[in-house]
């Protein structure tokens, strides 16, 4: 292969030689670089050229040309290359008719092994200037043969250093060559295989190397001797385009790489589990989140089926998921249960999206699993606490509240057993409500409490493992027999007072934490509130009952008193009155006028006294009477009262007018009759002397009430007195003018109030008064 390459290149090498001979010296930067040739020296100045190459044959041609031209001009030639290159170059020279043996004999031709030569001046991986100068300087001097000849040299020691990755040494060595040119007249041909400069990292070193040379020649692709100018320009244009597309390709790759790294990093450090699987459900990737959430390492699980993550009872889910994926559907935020490596379950929200290849075919799925155990637990706790609160607000039935609290507690704590114990009247904590505790256990442990009853602020007591924690021997035995392994005592307190406890039990050791017990504490607080509310309610009820009883007794005594008053107090008054009348009737003839007048006064005084007693009785009866409201026709009772009134007080000739049909109200007939009678009585009574009483009665609807108006043409009441009018024993008008006990209107107001209504007056104090009673309207009025 080597030989054929040399042979092929050999044909071309002549062309180069010929073309280059025709050309004059031209700088490498001109538009015709291919016309240049290594043999175009610039006179005595040091010519340090570099040839990049692709094939060894091309190199051999070019060196042969360069050295051969020197020999033909009588110059010396030195070759320091690899053995293969040295021999190929020698072949080329021989083919051009040069007798190397003779030239070597004359000292004009020297061939050295590059590797061997290098070893003679390299010290610690770098070229040593002194040794280099001595060695290479000596070789140059010999080849120049007493200063008469110039020397041409080919060296590829730099290329070897470069190939070994020692670019620093190569560049230093190039410099040493340059420095050597100050004392020696020679041209130097360096050669580097272009392949060694692949890669962006070599860009800077390549530029250094080019800089170290006075002339630079591209590889045969752009400087082939058989290329026309046209071809070369096209090749350069193509090269530029290639370089351009390579640049952009590199940029694209860089951005892809960055994106890939970014995605990889996002996936790797995501809190969520991110994995992928193929259409058979075999896991193909597994991130750190997945390791953390499920407990499997990537190495353990990749290549296994996702079904190992699914609890047995949910295995049916996977075929459905795979089927949907095959159809290209996405499964979004699907909440389900998955199983960890340690066998415990967790609640996850799954998002599964189909993965497609370049052709759009579904080849698997990416799977994101978010651990929603905490969220679900938080939701559940919230719901449990809400349920308890709702129950406490809805009912005062403690049994119901205890059940709701136990149920919520078991849900929050994932516990099967729980209990509520409360102090009984003897100060012993008794089981009040419980879940899954045997009768035997309850009887054995009842009464036990970790706190004194008067403990100032009792704190929860948690036994994470009864076999480890200190426990009373009897208690421990009972707890063991019941199969309880861990338990917590939560004090139920109200305003710092211990009233009982909540118990939580587990069959396995359980590490209780304050955070975990927080929801339970909230439930305990709710229950404490409900218990205390109930107690307060009971106390209140008892107090109300006691007061009611004593009030009833007071009323009974009051009634007894009234009854006695009505009999015993009125009897002597009646006696006085009646005897005075007897006296007047039987002995009137014997009495003079003043005596008769005094008798009249006795009789009137007695009558007033009797009326007063009766009014007081009426008033007190109204206050204590049980009032049952029923629809009352104001029309009916007012007409009856008016009729009786006209009959009893004929002398006044009062005119009482009822306007229209009076409406009906809700009232108590006896009380209402009393009130209306009093008002009518007042209406006809308080008139100026000589005035005929005229009374107008009507009703008026006022929203849901009815107001009965009684308007008179009497003397009126000045506004400043009106507020006193309805009080007991208040009299506005002087006694001597108008009779009255001063209780009548107090009775009216009291009656109205007892019936859920009110009474009042409107008057300007001149033109009569308008009294009213307002009561709720009867349904049908």
């Amino acid at each position: 292969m080597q030989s054929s390459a040399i042979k092929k290149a050999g044909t071309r090498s002549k062309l180069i030689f010929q073309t280059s001979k025709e050309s004059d010296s031209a700088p490498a930067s001109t538009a015709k670089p291919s016309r240049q040739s290594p043999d175009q020296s610039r006179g005595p100045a040091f010519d340090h050229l570099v040839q990049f190459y692709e094939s060894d044959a091309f190199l051999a041609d070019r060196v042969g040309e360069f050295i051969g031209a020197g020999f033909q001009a009588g110059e010396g030639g030195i070759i320091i290359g690899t053995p293969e290159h040295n021999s190929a170059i020698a072949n080329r020279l021989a083919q051009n008719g040069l007798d190397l043996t003779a030239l070597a004999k004359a000292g004009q031709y020297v061939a050295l092994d590059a590797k061997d030569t290098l070893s003679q001046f390299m010290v610690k991986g770098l070229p040593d200037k002194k040794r280099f100068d001595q060695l290479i300087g000596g070789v140059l001097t010999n080849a120049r043969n007493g200063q008469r000849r110039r020397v041409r040299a080919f060296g590829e020691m730099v290329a070897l250093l470069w190939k070994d990755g020692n670019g620093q040494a190569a560049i230093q060595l190039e410099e040493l060559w340059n420095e050597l040119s100050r004392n020696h007249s020679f041209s130097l041909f360096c050669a580097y295989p272009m392949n060694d400069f692949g890669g962006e990292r070599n860009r800077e070193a390549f530029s250094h190397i080019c800089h170290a040379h006075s002339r630079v020649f591209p590889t045969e692709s752009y400087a082939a001797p058989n290329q026309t100018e046209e071809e070369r320009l096209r090749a350069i244009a193509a090269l530029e385009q290639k370089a351009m597309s390579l640049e952009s390709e590199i940029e694209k790759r860089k951005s892809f790489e960055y994106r890939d790294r970014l995605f990889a990093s996002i996936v790797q450090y995501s809190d969520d589990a991110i994995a992928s699987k193929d259409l058979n459900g075999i896991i193909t990737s597994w991130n750190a989140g997945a390791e953390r959430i499920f407990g499997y390492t990537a190495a353990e699980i990749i290549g296994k089926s996702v079904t190992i993550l699914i609890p047995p009872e949910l295995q049916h889910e996977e075929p459905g998921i795979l089927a949907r994926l095959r159809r290209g559907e996405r499964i979004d935020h699907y909440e389900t249960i998955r199983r960890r490596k340690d066998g415990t379950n967790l609640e996850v929200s799954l998002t599964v999206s189909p993965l497609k290849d370049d052709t759009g075919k579904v080849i698997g799925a990416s799977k994101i699993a978010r651990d929603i155990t905490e969220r679900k637990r938080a939701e559940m706790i919230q719901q449990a606490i809400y349920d308890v609160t709702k129950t406490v607000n809805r009912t005062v039935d403690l049994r119901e509240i205890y059940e709701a609290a136990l149920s919520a507690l078991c849900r929050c704590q994932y516990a099967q057993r729980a209990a509520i114990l409360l102090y009984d009247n003897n100060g012993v904590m008794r089981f009040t409500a419980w879940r899954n505790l045997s009768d035997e256990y309850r009887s054995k442990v009842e009464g036990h409490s970790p706190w004194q009853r008067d403990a100032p602020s009792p704190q929860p007591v948690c036994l994470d493992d009864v076999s480890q924690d200190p426990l009373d021997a009897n208690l421990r035995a009972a707890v063991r027999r019941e199969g309880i392994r861990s338990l917590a005592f939560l004090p139920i307190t109200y305003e710092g007072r211990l009233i009982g406890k909540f118990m939580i039990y587990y069959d396995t050791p359980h590490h209780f934490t304050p955070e975990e017990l927080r929801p339970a504490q909230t439930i305990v607080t709710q229950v404490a509130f409900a218990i205390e509310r109930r107690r307060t309610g009971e106390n209140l009820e008892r107090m109300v009952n006691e007061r009611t009883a004593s009030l009833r007794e007071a009323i009974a005594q009051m009634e007894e008193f009234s009854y006695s008053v009505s009999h015993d107090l009125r009897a002597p008054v009646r006696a006085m009155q009646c005897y005075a009348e007897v006296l007047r009737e039987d002995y009137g003839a014997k009495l003079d006028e003043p005596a008769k007048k005094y008798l009249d006064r006795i009789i009137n005084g007695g009558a007033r006294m009797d009326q007063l007693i009766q009014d007081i009785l009426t008033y007190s009866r109204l206050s204590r009477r049980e009032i049952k409201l029923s629809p009352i026709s104001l029309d009916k009772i007012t007409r009856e009262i008016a009729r009786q009134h006209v009959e009893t007080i004929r002398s006044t000739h009062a005119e009482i007018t009822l306007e229209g049909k009076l409406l009906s109200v809700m009232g108590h007939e006896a009380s209402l009759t009393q009130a209306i009678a009093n008002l009518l009585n007042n209406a006809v009574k308080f008139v100026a002397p000589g005035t005929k009483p005229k009374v107008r009665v009507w009703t008026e609807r006022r929203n849901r009430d009815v107001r009965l108006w009684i308007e008179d043409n009497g003397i009126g009441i000045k506004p400043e007195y009106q507020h006193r009018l309805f009080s007991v024993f208040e009299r506005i008008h002087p006694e001597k003018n108008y009779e009255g006990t001063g209780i009548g209107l107090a009775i009216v107001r009291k009656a109205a109030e007892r019936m859920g209504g009110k009474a009042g007056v409107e008057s300007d104090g001149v033109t009569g008064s308008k009294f009213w009673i307002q009561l709720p309207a009867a349904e049908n009025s």
Partner: protein
Amino acid sequence: MSTTKPVILLAEDDENDVFFMKRALQKASVDFPLHVVKDGQEALDYLSGAGKFSDRHQHPLPALILLDLKMPFLNGFDVLAWINTQPSLKSIPVVVLTSSSEERDRQKAAQFGAKSYFVKPPTPDMLQQAMGLLNSSHENTTISS
């Protein structure tokens, strides 16, 4: 006629009220003999002809009973209740005459079978009405209060 003249029994502990009653009867021109007992127990004794009332000629069964409510020993209601248990006495009309204008007393008296209820002092009008009861009861007519 005079031998068969009906007797009125007045149960009243207050001497003043006895005086006013006699005077009112006189004013109302009721000249039926009035027998007075001082308390509820005496009323029972009289009606049952016990003790000093055993002589029915001297103490004949009354045609009308005027009954005070508030009396020592047995009160008016006790007397009414007892009368209700005596078939031979049930037909005698009882008129309650009291100082109490209490509605509950009025109702209770009616429940116990009193034919009429008057608040003291007695007036000739009242007694006329009471005598009306007497006449109609003789004619076996029921009169409601």
